């Protein structure tokens, strides 16, 4: 069993204080790093195989290398702590229990890319994690780990904690950038990518909290030690937020490549109250659902989960037991995306709204037989047609829940109510009052 990397200090109740972090080896690798050439730091991270832990899984070192070397503009780091994908609750643990590991990771990234200002965008609801992390930043400044000439290295870095105000879409990197600029968090078309034109029109790296918190271990133990963990393409470990109908929900760290259900069962004690497993959502509410058989057969790594038709995403695993209603689950998931659509792209704004309306109608026992295929026909029109992937994030679970649990949807539909008796046969059948 691989020793924990990200969560290794979580159990020390004093670890949020600088002294405890330093006593357990924190910050000790930075002086060595300041002696390295920045490009060599980027190479080290590239060779580690570290991929972004916010959901997209993009190789971190490669992302950094897209930032132009010669520019007369300042460069920025935006730390994405807008943890909002339903099922995800791991970054708040880093902010609360190992804030200096994040700060050390921020210093590492900024030194490698030549950045002197980092904004840490934390979701507004995280009162306590914001307070804890802000206190750690203040302590780092007071002890010369942030600010001018860090530990005599000649390297300057400012870290600003920026509080969000309640909008899931600000976890999308360009939505975050717009929000940080003081605007509505409506995502931007790409290209240009943030590495070239990011916040304040300047080259910008956007990295997730957990991604950055992995850097101190990588710099201390070396890229090859990190790359030796996991599988060929999914290197290292990841924090998995496991919630839903299990005995002991929580955040558990694992190397990649283990069996998905074995990992869930060993970590959490299995399905709550001895019930049967119905399904597993492996990567946040935007990922495709896996049946119990699929969850028992698949390995937990980017490629294996993708081959099973879903994704690792932000590592948010949700477990559905035999009593969980898939129709209700989809209704709740679609309500979320309809609520959080920023509204700028019609396929998303209208698609999420109407899919939620239709599933809600089915769940209330007022669905029509053709509603199921109507839903499936809407999905492709929402995918790949919008500025960001929020619309896809609604369509993907919808299609997968319906395809794998169609019988549950059919069970809600009144088969005694044939289409010809309705007001708008063949079209979107509006209930009275649905508009």
């Amino acid at each position, binding site marked *: 069993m691989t020793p924990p990397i990200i969560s290794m200090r979580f159990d020390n109740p004093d670890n949020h204080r600088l002294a405890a972090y330093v006593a357990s080896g924190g910050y000790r690798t930075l002086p060595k790093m300041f002696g390295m050439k920045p490009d060599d730091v980027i190479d080290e991270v590239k060779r580690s195989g570290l991929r972004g832990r916010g959901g997209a899984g993009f190789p971190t070192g490669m992302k950094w290398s897209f930032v132009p070397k010669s520019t007369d503009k300042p460069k920025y780091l935006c730390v994405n702590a807008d943890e909002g994908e339903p099922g995800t609750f791991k970054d708040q643990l880093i902010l609360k229990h190992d804030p200096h590991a994040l700060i050390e990771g921020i210093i590492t990234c900024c030194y490698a890319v030549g950045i002197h200002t980092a904004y840490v965008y934390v979701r507004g609801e995280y009162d*306590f994690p914001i307070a804890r992390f802000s206190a750690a930043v203040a302590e780092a400044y007071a002890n010369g780990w942030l600010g001018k000439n860090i530990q005599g290295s000649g390297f300057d870095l400012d870290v600003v904690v920026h*509080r969000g105000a309640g909008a899931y879409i600000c976890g999308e990197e360009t939505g975050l950038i717009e929000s*940080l*600029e*003081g*605007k509505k968090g409506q995502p931007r078309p790409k290209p240009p990518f943030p590495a070239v034109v990011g916040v304040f029109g300047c080259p910008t790296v956007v990295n997730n909290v957990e991604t950055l918190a992995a850097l101190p271990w990588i710099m201390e133990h070396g890229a090859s030690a990190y790359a030796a963990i996991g599988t060929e393409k999914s290197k290292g470990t990841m924090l998995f*937020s496991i*919630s839903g109908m299990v005995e002991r929900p929580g955040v558990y760290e694992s190397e990649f490549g283990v069996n998905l259900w074995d990992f869930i069962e060993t970590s959490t004690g299995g399905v709550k109250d001895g019930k049967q497993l119905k399904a597993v959502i492996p990567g946040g509410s935007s990922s495709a659902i896996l049946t119990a058989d699929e969850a028992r057969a698949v390995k937990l790594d980017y490629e294996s989960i993708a081959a099973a038709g879903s994704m690792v995403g932000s590592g948010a695993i949700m477990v559905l037991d035999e009593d969980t209603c898939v129709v209700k689950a989809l209704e709740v998931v679609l309500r979320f995306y309809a609520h959080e659509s920023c509204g700028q792209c019609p396929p998303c704004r209208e698609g999420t709204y109407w899919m939620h309306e239709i599933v809600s109608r089915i769940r209330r026992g007022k669905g029509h037989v053709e509603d199921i295929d109507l839903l499936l026909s809407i999905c492709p029109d929402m995918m790949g047609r919008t500025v960001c992937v929020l619309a896809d994030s609604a369509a993907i679970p919808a299609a997968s829940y319906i395809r794998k649990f169609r019988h549950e949807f059919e069970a809600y539909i009144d088969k005694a109510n044939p289409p010809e008796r309705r007001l708008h046969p063949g079209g979107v059948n509006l209930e009275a009052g649905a508009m």
Partner: protein
Amino acid sequence: MSHGSHAIASTGKPFAFSPENEKRFQELLPKYPTRRAVVLPALWLAQEQEGHLTVESMEYVAERLEQPAVTVFAVVEFYTMFKTEAVGKHHLQVCRTLTCTMRGCDDLQTMIERKLGIGAGEKTADGKFSVEMVECLGACGAAPVMRMDNRYWENLTVDKLERIIDACREGRDPASEDFDR
């Protein structure tokens, strides 16, 4: 896309930052290369000062940051945490997303309706409580959860939440009590 109704309340009285918030505002300015980037932090200061935002405080923020008022209004309208009406002394934000639904948030809402006589988006007549069903709070491992009094209340049951509400009703500080006993 339904980011709440924002009926904007005018107090009729002018707004200015308190001396303490003025100091915090001055500290914010050099941290950002543009004035506009200070809109969200400045709105947080204004909201903390008065409990909610008003026409006057939003116009004040716009003026201090040299922004058209409409850009500040649009920002306020977009984000769910900015409030343009007074919420209750205890504002219950109960999570209603997937894990919390699986673990019983509907029962919490039913109990709140029964106990306080208010549904989502409503406030008690004495102004003590208001309730809002919110999307994922990012604490699914402790579902069902709610946010109230600037902190999270986790692993809720109907009974536990009732006792938290009782403590608030009786004027005790719920944060100083252990409801898992």
